């Protein structure tokens, strides 16, 4: 018994920690990087520097404060405690790689180099969460990036070709379509969805039917073995209960339903325990 308790506690702890890990910095990727910035975005100081983009692939908010960005021997720790390091689901943030240290949370203080890799490290400074290789022949104003093949499943792949930079936007082959837009295009009259849905509903309930038919047979057999075969009187019990319930309902009409049946009425009276002389704080004035 003690062992079972230990095992179940351990399992619960593992489950809880897995849940906690599900929405942490490990869901971040380096989705894009640009090294030679001639006419791309300017930073808050009006400079054109190299930049990289982090993207949150999860459905929850991720705080990347305390994580590290490294390129070659350079290492930059993203400060903790800055509210702006919380990245919403499927959102991206641009970090500028240039300028000098101390420019702010989103400035690494070192630049990126072609032919190297930029890495995102967890807050231990060692575990690599994600990396992006920057080709040595990356043209100016073109970025190295990862691209989402399936926006729903968050299936990302490195794009082998230099791309037009798109800082702050999700890198995706085709614009994302909502389910309704997709259905409007592929099933304008709704027949495919209807037939599919009805099939699924029937399948789900058919499986329930199948399983509970079998389990019911076992239950009946087990009942017979134990000599718990129901008598005719027992068989009638539920029908009788239904009849009684309906009869009661008919008899009481609807008065049993949500109606306040108690009313407190306070009538003024001279003769009350509260009016007794002994309960008064002062004596009645004598005439």
């Amino acid at each position, binding site marked *: 018994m003690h062992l079972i308790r230990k095992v179940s506690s351990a399992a619960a702890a593992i489950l809880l920690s897995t849940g906690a890990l599900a929405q942490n910095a490990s869901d971040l990727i380096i989705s894009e990087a640009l090294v030679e910035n001639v006419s791309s975005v300017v930073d808050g100081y009006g400079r054109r520097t190299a930049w990289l983009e982090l993207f949150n692939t999860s459905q929850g908010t991720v705080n990347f404060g305390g994580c590290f960005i490294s390129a070659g021997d350079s290492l930059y720790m993203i400060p903790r405690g800055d509210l702006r390091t919380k990245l919403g689901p499927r959102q991206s943030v641009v970090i500028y790689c240039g300028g000098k240290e101390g420019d702010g949370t989103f400035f690494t203080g070192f630049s990126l180099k072609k032919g190297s890799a930029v890495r995102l490290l967890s807050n231990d400074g060692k575990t690599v969460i994600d990396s992006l290789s920057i080709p040595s022949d990356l043209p100016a104003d073109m970025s190295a990036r990862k691209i989402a093949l399936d926006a729903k499943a968050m299936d990302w792949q490195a794009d082998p070709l230099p791309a037009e930079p798109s800082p702050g936007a999700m890198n995706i082959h085709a614009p994302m379509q909502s*389910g309704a837009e997709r259905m*409007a295009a592929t099933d304008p009259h709704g027949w495919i969805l209807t037939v599919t849905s009805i099939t699924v509903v029937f399948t789900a309930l058919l499986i329930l039917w199948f399983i509970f038919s079998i389990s019911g047979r076992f239950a009946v057999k087990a009942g017979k073995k134990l000599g718990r075969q129901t008598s005719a009187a027992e*068989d009638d019990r539920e029908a009788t209960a239904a009849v009684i319930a309906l009869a009661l309902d008919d008899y009481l009409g609807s008065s049993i339903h949500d109606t306040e049946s108690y009313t407190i009425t306070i009538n003024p009276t001279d003769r009350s325990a509260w009016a007794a002389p002994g309960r008064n704080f002062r004596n009645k004035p004598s005439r």
Partner: protein
Amino acid sequence: MGNIIDSLQQFWQFTGFANCTWQNLVMILIGIFFITIAILKEWEPLLLVPIGFGMIVGNIPMFPGLNIGIYEDGSVLNILYQGVRQGWYPPLIFLGIGAMTDFSALISQPRLVLIGAAAQMGIFGAYLLALLLGFAPNEAGAIGIIGGADGPTAIFLSSKLAPDLMGAIAVSAYSYMALVPVIQRPIMLALTSRKERLIRMEKPREVSQREKIIFPVVGFLITAFIVPSGLPLLGMLFFGNLLKESGVTRRLAETARGPLIDVVTTLIGLTVGASTQADKFLSGKSLMIFGLGLLSFVIATASGVLFVKFINLFRPEGRKINPLIGNAGVSAVPDSARVSEVVGREADPDNHLLMQAMAPNVAGVIGSAVAAGILLGFLG
């Protein structure tokens, strides 16, 4: 003196009288009508009273910008309304429904579960019609779910697929749920012969406690694996039922089916009602939604009854199913099962169909949650 008159004039601009439109008055009258039928006729009073009063609350004309309206960020009503907008309330109601539903009728007669699937045709019939009328697929899906005859599911799905139509969809769903006896009876009589209405069905067997405990676990695993998008509703429904049947969590089950569901029902009714502000609610679209909602109920009822008649073609004499339980496949628990009982007793006063009808009835709850999950998966 002049200052006082100016102040009074300024105050007048803040009053409801100065900002009133005829649309506000129409909505307030509809709210009063809902409260009236809930009290006098006792049609779904637990829902129609909060919704009706919410309609009045939401349609009090006021000067905008006072941060009190339901659509104004940060107002009390807006905060309470988030439970509807974000879909928090419906799963909590499903928890309570699970904790108060006895699935033994379904467990003992699993063959009747398919009637609960057939009655979901109402959802997809209304979906097709809504597309035909020019609604976008997401709007059509949200409208179609009215046919599931399940208020929380309708609110849950419409909050995800078409939040702008949610007020009309919720009011329509609850109104027709209140009218289940009125809508279903003529359809049942029209589609069945007297001979069919007299069919007597075998009594359901007794279900062991072990079966009742296994049901929510297995039922959840099957349905959630097939339609994970229905997880919030299915998870809470079956979890609530496990609380009820496990026998060791009586306090939790009592809370779920008592105070919790009461609180959430009050909040959901009031805020859904308050969300029906005249400028957002009184439109041609709302009228079409009401029409489609009625049609979806009709299709759902007819599908259930006709499906039973179809099954009977393959069943031997003496083991046929009374088609009067077909209407119970819509998930208005237990009203539609009561309609089966009442109509059945009209044909044969000694023929009680209530327990048999409860099987498709609770299957309809599962079926409509599964259907909502599918629609959310495809259209969300």
